[in-house]
């Protein structure tokens, strides 16, 4: 791995520490009666914002109370994020391309798993409604959007990454780019070696060609 790759990997991994002190995700609710705004922020280990007010409103439609204590993801996520940061830093220090592959794959899996989990959580809250609720609109469910905006009765719900979330997403994208760069860079460096070798003697050429062929064989394929 190139030095720049190592540095960027360590810096972007460490930058994800931001997600321990800023929210990952935000859900904002807009309604005429709430000119001051209403919303909740999902952190790596807690949920903040107008949770009581939102729970108070949600009871009309029979939604379960959002109780951070009963959401197990909030206890798991700090370890997942901590692990990612540690693995990223180790990968940067060791500079092994194989490890970069491992890191990228784990990062992507964690990201997808997080998204799926968040979707299922939203699905559950939006669909598992108390049948005795005061307001029952036939066919209506109240699942907030995973990403974007959606009208839910009198509220428009907006769901977007918050500061910490953007940093993690940025770090993930950067990791993928670094992997692409690394694999591409190695190809071009091999080509450069080929050009340089033309100036050498034919015997040297043979020796070098053999070595190069060997090296290229050892290189795992990009596909």
């Amino acid at each position, binding site marked *: 791995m190139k030095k720049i790759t190592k540095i960027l990997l360590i810096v972007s991994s460490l930058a994800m520490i931001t997600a321990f002190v800023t929210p990952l995700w935000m859900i904002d609710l807009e309604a005429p009666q709430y000119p001051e705004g209403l919303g909740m922020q999902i952190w790596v280990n807690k949920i903040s914002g107008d949770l*009581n*007010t939102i729970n*108070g409103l949600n009871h*009309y439609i029979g939604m379960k109370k959002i109780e951070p204590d009963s959401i197990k993801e909030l206890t798991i996520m700090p370890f997942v994020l901590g692990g990612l940061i540690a693995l990223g830093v180790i990968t940067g220090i060791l500079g092994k391309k194989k490890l970069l592959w491992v890191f990228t794959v784990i990062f992507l899996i964690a990201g997808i798993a997080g998204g799926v989990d968040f979707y299922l959580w939203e699905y559950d809250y939006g669909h598992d409604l108390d049948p005795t609720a*005061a*307001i029952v609109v036939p066919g209506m469910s109240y699942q907030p959007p995973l990403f974007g905006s959606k009208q839910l009765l009198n509220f428009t719900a907006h769901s977007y990454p918050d500061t910490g979330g953007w940093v993690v997403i940025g770090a993930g994208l950067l990791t993928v780019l670094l992997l692409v760069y690394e694999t591409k860079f190695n190809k071009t460096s091999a080509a450069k070696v080929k050009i340089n070798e033309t100036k050498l003697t034919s015997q040297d050429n043979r020796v070098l060609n053999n070595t190069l062929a060997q090296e290229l064989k050892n290189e795992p394929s990009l596909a």
Partner: protein
Amino acid sequence: MKFNVKNFSKQMVSKISSSSILPPITAGLILAIMFSIILLAGCGKKDGSTTLSLSEDAASKVFVPPGKHDEFYSFISGGFSGQLAIYGLPSGRLFRVIPVFSVDPEKGWGYTEETKPMLMTSHGFIPWDDSHHSELSMTNGVPDGRWIFLNGNNTPRLARIDLKTFRTAEILEIPNSAGNHSSPFTTENSEYVVCGTRFSIPINELDVPIDSYKETFNGTVSFVKIDPQSGNMSVAFQIMSPPFDYDLSHAGKGPSHDWFFFSCYNTEQAHTLLEVNASQKDKDFIMAVNWKKAEEYIAQGKGKDKEAEYYHNTYDEASHTGKSEILKTVKMLDPKDCPGMVYYIPCPKSPHGCDVDPSGEYIIGGGKLATVIPVFSYSKMIKAIENKEFDGDVGGIPVIKYEAALHGEVQKPGLGPLHTEFDDKGFAYTSMFVSSEVVKWDIKKLEVVDRAPSFYSVGHIMIPGGDSKQPYGKYLVVMNKITKDRFLPTGPELTQSAQLYDISGDKMKLLSDFPTIGEPHYAQGCPADLISKNSVKIFKIDENKHPHAIKSVNDAKVVRNGNEVRVYLGMIRSHFTPDVIEGVKVGDKVYFHVTNLEQDWDIPHGFAVKGMNNSEMLIMPGETQTIVWEPKVATVYPFYCTDFCSALHQEMQGYIRVQPAGSNPEIKYYLGNK
């Protein structure tokens, strides 16, 4: 606006005959000519309507679009309503009436156990007073937006209203006082708020013949110390003074910082038929008090402890509870023992307003029966005191020679000068009660530069910051005693009103009329953001220190102790916890301790029980209030939320069962499923 001939003619008659002293016939003739001109002009118009000369863009100047905020708060005294009303300027929209001295069954003020102590006095519980003047607390001579003070005129009291919660935080009874009219004016850093007696009364010996007035009656002026942190009020000292009527006052500022000025009338010392007997002298007095000197005399021990009994009522925001303490003594200073503390300045005639300009140099007396507006000079007054330019003394108080303290007189200002406010450009504005107009004049040159009619009989006027060091000379609010034909009629009892004038230019321009509650006397105004940014939205339930608060619905309960039943009710949209209550019997005293558990902005709940000989209560988010109910008939009583709180507000209700006296009912309570 339709042209109103009757109204206009009335104005013109009074104006023409009063200002130029023309015989009524001449005035009538002029009027007749003017009428024909107006009628002719009217005929010329195709739509047949004629508009009064309102400034053309008046509507746009007072129009605050829906959802937009006003530029200024104004706090207009409620007069005989005993309350304080808040209006926005320039719109004139009424935002809220703060209950102060009078009970308010709408809010539960004076009915709940928590607020009853606030209206306690040495005479017992009093459900009413007459609130005349408001004054914002000051720092460095300008309103600081922390508190507003209000006087109680009838049973002498002083109130402090907290401008974070817009609630009455404290009421202090003033001993040795009657008609607390020259109040609640304050010094530049609200070191003191003053209270002066409009009625002199017997103070040393209480039961005396009324015709011994001159010998046995006295006035007092009280200096109430304001704690700079908490705002807590205490009577620091009182000054015993001759039996005059102490009418209005204002503190000095800048160079005159150490002084306080009070207007006095009835220096004739009449005790009957005052309208004649108190209007005999050409000049009464402005009383100048050096309060720094008074402090020195108090430090020297010159203040005599005088026995008294007066109430000090405070409302604690953390426990949402008011309490009364009874105070027994007050320090009294006698000017005879305290040379250099009090002086009288002669002032024509029966002065009302006593106002100090923003520089602190000029003191203006509003002699209601005077034909001039006298302007006194602080520096000349000090020089006169140094040179002992006195005209004898009254009751040991030196009387400064009129000319020695006089800066000059404004000639022919109008009739019945009452009260003066100031702008930031060196002009004074004086209300003229009799000629029903506001007169703008140059303070230094003593020249009238403009006049504008008021509709009708203006009392006090107000410019935001207009009695401070820094007036905001954009609007002038005029408070009228008579409205007659200005609004749709409402029987014999008509609204009082305020009128808004644009004073940003050379000429005053009438912008709007708006009705007011009670009878407005004095008012205060200040830029909105001075106060709006600190306005409390909710009370935090975690910080609720009420002894009977519940912090969650799980704590709701019903507890019997002898004949007392305490119901700890929780409210959250849209139900009471509990909402089914049994176990009460006739003869019980039921305390409903109701906590609003909401923590959301603008979600109050109300509480009322059928047949309760009491008011409702409005309970703000995070607050606890208590109301007492003594049911007389065994049956089931519904209770409900009175403040429309949600889509299911109509479902927010409960039942309480009362069983016969002598029975032994089991306490039972629940919500939803048993």
